[in-house]
């Protein structure tokens, strides 16, 4: 079952194995420059093709932290309408992603439990490149309100 992002998600509504609404991105070079300014990461491999090639890359690559933030947006857009929040989210940068390519952010619920009075949901999260490879796998824990 895939819920729509407009839904308010409550703890009672979710189950292990459920996929959350995916978020499709297609970062432009302009967006990478916006990210450089917003994050303060001015490393040239993210906007200067010649510099990137000189370090052995095939061209400019998407910032790892931007992919982390994209996955954060997927989680935020899922939990925030009902007043839920993100407790933890972490990823590894396993593969390069390039601008002007579709990147799909996805998440699947792996565990649902209560701890210290909080309704917690663990997820596997990842970004997928156009070839279907998981370039940014990780995990997250969110807190969901009860109905």
């Amino acid at each position, binding site marked *: 079952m895939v819920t729509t992002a407009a839904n308010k998600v409550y703890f009672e509504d979710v189950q292990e194995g459920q996929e959350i609404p995916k978020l499709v991105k297609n970062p432009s070079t302009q*967006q990478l420059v916006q990210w450089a300014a917003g994050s303060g990461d001015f490393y040239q491999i993210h906007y200067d093709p010649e510099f990137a090639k000189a370090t052995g890359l095939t061209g400019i690559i998407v910032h790892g932290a931007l992919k982390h933030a994209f996955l954060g947006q997927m989680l935020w857009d899922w939990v925030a309408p009902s007043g839920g929040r*993100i407790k933890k989210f972490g990823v590894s*940068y396993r593969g390069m992603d390039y601008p002007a390519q579709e990147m799909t952010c996805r998440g699947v619920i792996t565990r649902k439990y209560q701890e210290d009075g909080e309704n917690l949901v663990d997820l596997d999260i990842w970004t997928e490149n156009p070839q279907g490879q998981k370039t940014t796998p990780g995990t997250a824990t969110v807190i969901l309100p009860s109905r």
Partner: protein
Amino acid sequence: MAEEFQLTQEMKDAIGVESEPHTVELDKTAVRMFARAVGYTDPVFYDEAEAKRRGFRSLPAPPGYLGTPIFNPRATAPGVGDQQGGRRFSNPFKRVLNGGTEIEYVGDICAGDALTVRSKIADLKPARGSLGQMLITTNESTYHNQDGKLVAIMRGTIINY
């Protein structure tokens, strides 16, 4: 580097040494810039009245945003990408990649907050992969707000190769 790379004593000594604290700030403009760069359409990151209506003190920090270091060309405080614990060591590798990021939120963070950051190298280890010989550094930073409350812990992995 033909021979197998091993940690130097200088590197081993750097593990666990906490940095001098430094301050990062969050203001509304920076929150909007970050949210816009990610592509958020949720008005909570742009409209303070909406943020307050939804129970936030001001614009909330978007996931992944933990403030902006205070830039001052005359200061030597660490900036972004330079938060590697409290001790320097000579590094034989020229190239660097971001290996991973994990953020754990303990409290809420909003525009108007100033956070005190303390960083340390939690782990250093040699590795060999598709990039050849590598040095994997795991940094851990704690973020305390202006009331002294721990609000976030960030663990970052840096790959030197």
